[in-house]
């Protein structure tokens, strides 16, 4: 694998982890437009432990993930009091405030950035991405995933059925924060240099668009959305700004024609091997 392909694949894996971190709260009906803030916490946490604390990666990455999860947990209570547009704004403000804090405080290097000594290889990143993907698929198959979907589809009914909506929301937001933090830690160790300007609102926006494009109904959504927007432009050798114009047009058309996202529950159902097999059998038996 050439260095170029390896670089793209690393970015894809990091974005995928990030996207799953946005997906978990989104699956329970919460939009997080402050993803970059959580990623910054993960990246700076891991970077600081690695450079100042001289800790190995098997300490820094879990610690940074936990730190971002903890921040997610703490911020979840005030943020989840808000809804709809307000929640988008609250998470947006959180992301901007974190980036501003990192830019301002000299403790983390301020505007100069921070050098991260320990380097993670592509295999490690891919392993993380694979583990996160499997984890989220598992999570969506558990009772938690079912309840999250119920809250997304109709909160009032979920409450009537005895679901502790608040607990599920806080849990989803916390898990999401931790996963985005993990993506930040991996990013820091892979790129070996982090600066606050990287974690801007556009980053949060892009990843949110990947997730909503792919669809939040199933765990396939972020995988498909991230693959399409991270890998496809590279293979098509589509340069610079046109890539973003096409991205924008695709998003606008998607929202007009299929706002529930590319991959829906019905689609997954239709394409599932079991269903296909059943259809095959019924055709054979009728013939």
């Amino acid at each position, binding site marked *: 694998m050439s260095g170029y392909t390896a670089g793209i694949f690393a970015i894809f894996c990091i974005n995928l982890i990030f996207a799953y971190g946005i997906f978990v709260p*989104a699956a*329970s*009906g*919460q*939009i997080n437009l402050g993803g970059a803030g959580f990623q910054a916490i993960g990246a700076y946490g891991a970077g600081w432990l690695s450079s100042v604390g001289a800790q190995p990666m098997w300490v820094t990455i879990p610690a940074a993930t936990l730190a971002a999860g903890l921040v997610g947990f703490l911020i979840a209570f*005030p*943020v989840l*009091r*808000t*809804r*709809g*547009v*307000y929640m*988008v*704004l*609250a998470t*947006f*403000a*959180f992301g*901007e*405030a974190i*980036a*501003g*804090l990192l*830019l*301002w405080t000299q403790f983390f290097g*301020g*505007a100069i950035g921070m050098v991260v000594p320990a380097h993670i290889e592509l295999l490690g990143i891919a392993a993380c991405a694979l583990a996160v993907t499997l984890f989220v698929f598992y999570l969506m198959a558990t009772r938690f995933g079912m309840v999250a979907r119920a*809250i*997304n*589809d*109709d*909160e009032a009914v979920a409450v009537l059925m005895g679901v502790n909506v608040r607990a599920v929301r806080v849990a989803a937001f916390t898990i999401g924060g931790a996963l985005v933090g993990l993506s930040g830690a991996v990013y820091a160790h892979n790129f070996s240099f982090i600066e606050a300007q990287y974690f801007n*609102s556009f980053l949060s*926006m892009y990843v*949110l*668009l990947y997730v*909503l494009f792919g669809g*939040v109904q199933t765990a396939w959504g972020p995988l498909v959305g991230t693959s399409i927007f991270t890998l496809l432009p590279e293979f098509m050798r589509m340069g*610079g*700004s*046109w890539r*973003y*114009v096409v*991205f*924008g*047009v*695709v*998003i*606008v058309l998607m*929202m*007009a*024609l*299929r*706002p*529930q996202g590319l991959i829906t529950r019905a689609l997954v159902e239709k394409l599932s091997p079991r269903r296909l097999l059943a259809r095959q059998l019924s055709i054979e038996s009728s013939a």
Partner: protein
Amino acid sequence: MTGIPYLVRARKFTMPVLVATLIVALAVCCSVFGGPGLVRQLVSGLMLGSIYMMVAVAFTLTIGVLNFLNFTIPTLFMLTGMVAWGLMAKGYINFAGGWAWLVALACGIAVAVLASLLVERFTFRYLKVKHGDAIEHAIPLVSSLGFLLIFEHLVLISLGSESHRFFVPFKADFHVGNLVFGIPQLASSLFAIVTVGTLSFVLKKTNTGRALRTIADSADTALLLGVETKKLVPIVFILTGVMAGLAGALFTVNYGEVSPFMGDNVGTKAIAAMVLGGLGSIWGSIVGGLIVGVLETLSIYFFGGDSVQMVVWGALLAIIILRPQGLLGVAVSARSRL
């Protein structure tokens, strides 16, 4: 719910008086405790704040009437400046007399309004599919993020990514004591106040304004009572385009510079201003815009340039957590929108 909870509340002249008193009080405090340097910061903060104020009013209109956070507003702002510069630089507007810049800016605003109408087509008119889950409200928002990418990168492709000087023939300053006022800045502040005042009047007194406020209260009831919501939604977008475009034009004249990224900072600060003042309240946006402008210049003065982002967004986060309806928002309206 009593009366009309947001957008424009009948408070007669209490709000303007309150704002004016606040500004005067701040100015007196600054001059007494801080000396002329601080007063200069306050003045430039208010100038900047009047730009934020106009953009924040544009944001608050679409949120108040349509419950839609329109992320294209920063690009409409930027389009005005960049189109005006592009028209002059490529020589499409080069007639004699010193008014070419004004014509160019007017064309820029027209482009912003057209772009805003294009956004209306794809965020509201064609959105028929409803799937009824919790993130459905985000569909127009996501479309507007798509448009943000389209407009910004089309400008980058056609006009390049550098910032350019925008020549305006007058650049006179005048002095009051040891304070320096720029005439463009002062004129733009007055202009901003007049525009916002006019908008406020239109919403309060005219039939169109009344209909818009009905939609803001309850779109379904408005439709039942015979308000033609389909015809009014484009009006909201035209007003949005005009406000954002005018703000962009004033910014261009004030700072004499345009760039494809000029909307990003102003746009996010205006969002902060709107939330600070209270979602869907026009006076809230006005107060919020001025506060953010002053907060920005004062935090640069006291803590250095890197602190702005943290101070503004930290204040905003605190407001969202402690008082989600904003400084001037009404609790009832916030609750019904939350």
